[in-house]
Each structure stands twice: as C-alpha cells, then as structure tokens.
C-alpha cells in the first residue's frame, strides 16, 4: 500500500493517460483528469463518445466485456485500481453504481436495499432494518415505501425503482457513486426528483454522473467534462464550460450545433 501517496493525492480519482480498446476500436484516448471529493462531476458528450465506457472503467464494470483492453492508470485514493492489491469487489463496495435503467432484483423492497450489506456479512436484523431506513430516507423513497417493505420491487414505478437502486447503492456506504445516465429511462417528474436528490448526495458522496442531457449537467454539477470521440476535450467548472468554453468543439456541442 502506498499510504504516503494517499495523503499527498487530493483527488478521489486520479486518471492518468487512460486508453481503452474494444478489440481494435479505441474508445478512450489518453484521458487524464482528477475528480475531487464531495463534488458532482458531470460527463457530457454525444452518443458513442466514450462517456459511459469511462465511468464503467472507474469501477471496472467494463471488464465484463471480454474484448476490452486498457492502458494507463486510474488511481483511487492513490491506489491503482488495476493493481493486484485492489480487489475488484472491494473497489465496487467503495464505489457504487447506478445504471441507465432501474435494475432492482426480483425480490422485496427490503431485500433489495439490504442485499449489499447482507452479502458482505451484516446479519443482525435490527442493523439491517436501520440500514434500510437510512438508505431509503437518503434516496427520498422512505415515505413512499415504509408500509410496503415486503412487496416486490417491481410493483414500484420506474422512478421509484431508480431511487430504490440509489438506496441499494447507498446501503453499502460507498464513498463515490457513479451514475450512468440514471434518468434516461424516466419521465420528467421522476427525473426532477432524482436531480433534487443529487444536491443531498453531494454532502456525503462524491458523484460522477454521465448524462446526455446538457441542461441536467448545468443544473446539478460542479464540474463538467466534455467527451468527444473518446477524447476528453474540456474539463472545468460547470459554469465556465457552459458560459465560456475554451474549445470550439465544446461550444459547438453545448450550443446544439451537433450531438
């Protein structure tokens, strides 16, 4: 363990020269960026720009695709996530993920929330109940489901299911939450509720969110990264990206000239 490194590094995630290939297709080209604690970082860009691939690399979910090959370093609190001292399961408990489509397990609402803690050895029913309540409150879902905890998660609406998935992620007490277009399958009202939630999440977690919705990025994030064809074009404070972009391509994209 390079603990000295951990203290020196102010970044939660420090990505250095990351390249990624699907077979022969290069999807990420020499990405270098740092993500700071308790900030919301939005990643925007047109379809196929590599933004989803990028966040899936941060918790190594991308490895479920066998033809993927990576090069470069991703330091998580100073430790290389591809290094042998970092177990992928440990990484994923410290870095939670919310997916594009709500993906609850075909179990009860309660069992969904406590799945993570249970898998990782929390057995005490009282503690599990506490975790469930806390996480569901954190995901602004508690009041809607507190009387129906034993119902199947699929009895919830799409927006509720997605908040359940957020609660499920929070239940393992991660440090970072990755969100891969978490509202793309939701209606505007459900989207708004999740955006409202983001402000609260920021207090406890570092959030990295991929979105195809520029207004969403502008509304909720502190920093914004613009990806295009696998390259990181620009990465700066969100208000700066949207008011005064440095790169012509960023400007073209945020003003709707393509994408």
């Amino acid at each position, binding site marked *: 363990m390079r603990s000295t490194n951990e203290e020196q590094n102010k970044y939660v995630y420090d990505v250095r020269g990351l390249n990624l290939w699907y077979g022969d297709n290069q999807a990420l080209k020499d990405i270098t960026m740092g993500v700071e604690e308790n900030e919301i970082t939005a990643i925007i860009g047109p379809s196929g720009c590599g933004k989803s691939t990028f966040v899936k690399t941060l*918790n190594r979910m991308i490895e479920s695709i066998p033809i993927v090959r990576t090069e470069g370093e991703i330091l998580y609190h100073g430790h290389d996530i591809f290094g042998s001292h970092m177990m992928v*399961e440990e*990484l994923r*408990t410290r870095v*939670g993920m919310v997916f594009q489509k709500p993906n609850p*397990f075909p179990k009860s609402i309660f069992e969904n929330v406590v799945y*993570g803690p249970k898998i990782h050895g929390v057995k005490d029913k009282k503690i599990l109940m506490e975790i469930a309540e806390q996480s569901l409150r954190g995901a602004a879902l508690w009041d809607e489901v507190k009387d129906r905890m034993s119902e199947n998660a*699929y009895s919830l609406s799409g927006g509720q299911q997605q908040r359940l998935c957020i609660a*499920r*992620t929070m239940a393992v007490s991660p440090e970072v939450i990755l969100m891969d277009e978490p509202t793309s399958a939701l209606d505007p009202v459900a989207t708004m509720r999740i955006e409202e939630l983001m402000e609260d999440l920021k207090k406890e977690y570092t959030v990295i969110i991929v979105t195809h919705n520029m207004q969403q990025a502008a509304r909720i994030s502190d920093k914004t990264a613009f990806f295009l064809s696998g390259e990181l074009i620009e990465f700066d404070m969100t208000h700066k990206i949207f008011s005064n972009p440095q790169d012509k391509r960023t400007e073209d994209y945020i003003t709707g000239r393509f994408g």
Partner: protein
Amino acid sequence: MGKNSIREIIQNNIRNKNHFSDKVMPKVFFVMASISVITTFGIVYTLIFDSIKFFSQVPIREVFSTNLNPLSRDPSFGFLPLLNGTLLTTIIAMIVAVPVGMAAAIYLSQFASAKLRKVLKPILEVLAGIPTIVYGFFAYSFVTPLLMNLIPSLGAKNALSPGIVMGIMIIPMVASLSEDAMNAVPTIMKDGALGLGSTKLETTLKVIIPASISGIVASIVLGISRAIGETMIVTIASGSSKNFTFDITQSMQTMTAYIVEFTSGDAGSGTVGYYSLYAVGLILFVFTLGMNLIAQYISRKYREEY
C-alpha cells in the same frame, strides 16, 4: 419504366390476386394442428375405456396392495411394487440429474467463455439424442458390472444402475433448459449485483438463480416426467421382479417395464391381465400429465417477477 406504370402493374396484380390459397391454407394448418390434439383424446379414450373394464373386475383395495402376480391361475393385481419401482428409479435419476445438470447450467451460463460454451453446449445436447436403448445397454453391460465392484451384493438386474443412467440421460435436459432460464435474466440485473461488490458466484446464487427459479424448477419437473415415462433403460437393466422392496440393489419392475413385458408376452386379449396394461398406462399418463401441468403452472406463476 415510369412511376405510373409500376403503380398500374401493382394495382392490376393486387386486384387479380388469387385469394383461394389465403382462404384454404389456414384450414389446412388447422387440420394439421388438430391431429395431435385428436390423437391425445384418442389415447385418453382408449386408456379410460379399457381401464374401466379392469377396475370393474379388480377391487380398488387389491390395486393398492403389494401383491402383484398377474400370470398365476389366481392372479392378483397389486400395483404398489410397480409404483415403487418407478418412484425409486426416478428418485435415483433426479439425485444424479439435478445437481449435475444445475452445475453444468451454472457453468455454461455464468462462467464459461462464449467460445467454450459454443463447443460445450452442442456436445451436452448430443447426450439427449442418444437412443434410450443404447442407454439401457450401457446400464446393463457397463454401469452394473462397474457398480458390482463397489457393491458385491448388487443383482445383475437392479434399480440403482438404470436409475443412475436415466439421470445421465436427463442431465442435458435439466442443464439446457436451466441454462436458457439463467441466460434470460437481464444482464443489467446481473450488473446491479456485481456493482454492489458481489463476486460472480454470489451473483449467481443470490440473484441469477432466484430470478430464473421458475425455468429451473420447470426443467426439473420435466426431467421427473421424463424419468417416470422412461421405458427401455429400466426394462433392460432393472428386470421384472414384482417384489415390493426398497432395496435398490435388487431387481424391481417399473410401470413402463410392466407394460413392455405384457405387450410382448402372452397376456391374452380380453383377460384381466390384458386390461391391467391399460390401467397401468392410465396411471402413468396421469402422472406425467400432472408433472407437465405442474411445470407449466410454475413457469407461468413466476413469469412476471421481473
């Protein structure tokens, strides 16, 4: 050719189209589809009709006794030895088929690489294509002698060996159907579990299998139904002893083997022994029908879980 003339051709053709086949073909399809339904009703009718003749001559209490002696001068028709034979060989078969089939399904659907799966699955399914007479021969001339080394008291005809071989025969069925069920679980659900830090094995046991349990149970029930109806293996390797015993190292007769023995033997048409075949056939039919209905019910009941 101008646009107008193409339109003319199409409009002409559509008006002159022969609608005869559109009217007749659906009727032909209907008749074809009806054949299997009619056949089923025919079988049920024969079974019930001739079974009634049997049950009118043999009291129910005798049917549920352990004394089966159809060919003696004073015949008795206790079917419990046959039920017992079928039950025990089926249980042995499922003890082999369920764990092995499930393990194979888990490996193929969750752990094998795409390349390996492409090779392994067809090989596994070849097992399903082997004629059952070959399995029967395999049980009698290979498995039984092999088992004799372990269990010296094993009879040349016994329930254990055909039970095991039936299990081997059913493995591909359980494996293939269970694998299909596990593969049908959406990837995104699996990702959800992996994303929470579950290992692949935890994901399989805690998420994939519960999510596909209906398909898995249905495959097992269909396997049971196959074992109950299996004939050749037990006829060859389990013999025709009509003793009521739970000793699987000894010969016992299943319902199917009983029917084989009497249709190839000399039960004269019109005798009680002859009608007993239909009664046994009816019981067998009810069993397998019941199993298939259970399988259908289970897969329907849990279908809407996700």
